[in-house]
């Protein structure tokens, strides 16, 4: 903290009694003032301030098995994509013996053309992740632009932007990509990512629009308007931060969609030309009849990595969901506690008579009642 501010603070705290006199004059009960104890003593005040680091940690999602598994999977694969290529041979080197099963020389065997599968896998990780990342960023930026602007401004802006969103939503993505991809002669990695991003934003735009519609009616947005904030700033500073968890989830989802979309395109032979991705590996494996020749080391690794990355990102997504909506996290625990309570209850009541509704019919009282009726 600034030295002058601290001085100012000290000066104020010594005369801190004066504003409260006002209340004494009014003859009022003192209001809840949790800081009154800390009044006299600024050292205690300083100690009460929570360090920034802890503040940030407290705001992060709770560590859960889901989150840890997801992070390990994702970071493992990303790491493999970043540093893996430095440790393998050239993926386009075809001097190796063809269709070798895994061996100490070629840990994941070789392809029909003599490429090292591990090398292709490492370079493919780079390509696939790049496509996913670019497509994800494009999709999130577009869905933000369309969703939040439509939701915040409403009226005709909303009508028009929603129309565009809905059109994009009903156009089946993959066929459109196939049409576009087959039109363009030189399909680079960037172009494929661009096309995937441009076709994959509509779903999250719908979600963001409804969220923004709800947030814009909050009092704090109205308060910001009364304070004189400009719409752009209200969207960026007041609304957007509250959408961050949702945005993070949607970004991860867009990345998964991008990677899967690229794999699908490449498998159909419409993927990026000249680059290696997991999708192009699968395509080559299919063309090289890997399945019928039993070359499992050729198609299982890229397929497994796609599945594992999707799994990892989804698990992170689930834990973000639980962070946004704590009910999701607490629901299984609550159910468990209900089950154990019921079991415990059954044990207690097992030596008594219980009717269908679970009400204890106490045998002794029942007899007394019967006696009374008899009298």
């Amino acid at each position: 903290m600034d030295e002058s501010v601290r001085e100012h603070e000290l000066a104020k705290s010594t005369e801190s009694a004066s504003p409260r006199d006002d209340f004494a004059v009014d003859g009022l009960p003192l209001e809840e003032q949790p800081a009154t104890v800390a009044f006299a003593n600024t050292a205690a005040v300083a100690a009460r301030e929570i360090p920034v680091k802890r503040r940030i940690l407290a705001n992060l999602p709770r560590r859960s098995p889901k989150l840890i598994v997801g992070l390990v999977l994702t970071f493992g694969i990303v790491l493999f994509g970043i540093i893996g290529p430095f440790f393998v041979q050239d993926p386009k080197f075809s001097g190796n013996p063809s269709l070798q099963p895994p061996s100490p020389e070629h840990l994941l065997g070789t392809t029909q053309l003599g490429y090292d599968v591990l090398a292709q896998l490492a370079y493919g990780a780079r390509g696939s992740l790049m496509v996913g990342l670019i497509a994800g960023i494009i999709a999130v930026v577009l869905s933000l632009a369309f969703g939040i602007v439509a939701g915040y401004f409403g009226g005709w802006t909303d009508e028009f932007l929603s129309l565009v969103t809905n059109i994009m939503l009903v156009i089946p993505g993959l066929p459109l990509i196939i049409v576009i991809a087959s039109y363009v002669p030189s399909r680079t990695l960037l172009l494929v990512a661009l096309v995937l991003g441009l076709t994959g934003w509509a779903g999250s735009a719908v979600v963001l629009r409804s969220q923004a519609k709800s947030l814009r009616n909050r009092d704090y947005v109205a308060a910001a308007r009364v304070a004189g904030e400009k719409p752009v700033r209200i969207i960026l500073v007041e609304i957007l931060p509250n959408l961050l968890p949702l945005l993070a989830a949607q970004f991860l989802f867009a990345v998964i969609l991008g990677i899967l979309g690229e794999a699908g395109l490449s498998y159909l032979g419409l993927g990026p030309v000249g680059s290696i991705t997991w999708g192009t590996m699968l395509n080559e494996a299919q063309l090289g009849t890997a399945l019928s020749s039993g070359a499992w080391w050729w198609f299982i690794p890229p397929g497994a990595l796609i599945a594992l990355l999707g799994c990892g990102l989804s698990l992170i997504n689930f834990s973000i969901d639980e962070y946004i909506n704590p009910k999701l996290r607490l629901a299984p625990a609550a159910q468990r506690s209900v089950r154990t309570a019921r079991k415990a209850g059954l044990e207690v009541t097992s030596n008594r008579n219980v009717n269908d509704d679970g009400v204890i019919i106490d045998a002794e009282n029942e007899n007394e009642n019967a006696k009374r009726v008899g009298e």
Partner: protein
Amino acid sequence: MGSLEVRNLTKDFTIRSGLKRSKLRAANDINFVLEPGKTIAIVGESGSGKSTVARMIAKLEQPTSGDILLDGTSSATRGRALVDYRHQVQMVFQDPFASLNPFHTVEHHLERPLKLHGVTRGARETKEQTYELLERVNLTPANVFAAKKPHEMSGGQRQRVAIARALAPGARFLIADEPVSMLDVSIRLSVLNLLARLQREDNLGVLYITHDLATARHFSDEIIVMLRGNIVERGPSDEVILNPRHEYTELLLAAAPNPSNHGKLRSEVRADLASTGRGSQDPLAPSGTSVR
């Protein structure tokens, strides 16, 4: 010092149900003048249009017709002039749990209006001013409260922050839309007294919107009673409370729990009212009998 004048203010809301459209008049021909240092209370039940009036004056809603005049000149709806208007007229919202952004600290909430309205220059001056504002609303030690987020504070503390935010631009007129209705009963009076003190210090004109006649009398110079968008009664607050002219005002008074009516049935209280010779027509009939 000029005044804030509301002239023939009317607001229609369009209600769409299927293809049918109908209009709801939320506020009809509202007139009053708010002088600096004075308090006007607008009283009425839910849906009587009192909050709509507040939102129109705060420029959150566009009036269908009518005018809001600040210092005798018609107020702007956009641009630089609107910022100047907001500089003078600020609002405190009803729900302190909703009116502060959960993502931002107290400091952010107070800094923004200070910067926007050019009250302070430079980070240091802004910080000092922020702390001073917090101290004015009795949130001490200010540096602790400045770093807090809304969810770390109680309802009363949040409402104090909201009041500090409204004061930040140096406003001359404050619209308080049921500022204490969401607070614990034990805190209400202290927040109201805080408002009263700030009003004395800054010579603020306060428009106090409430459904609570007791605090309206305690706190304001003039009371305006609204029913279904119309002003049905107005006058100095003691006169309105002690000598209500309109049936609806009596109903509002009777609706407040009164110890002397303890044990009586509602019908008996009504009968008491009737026997004093006041009012025979249906009080909820739209009469539009604005007194004075």
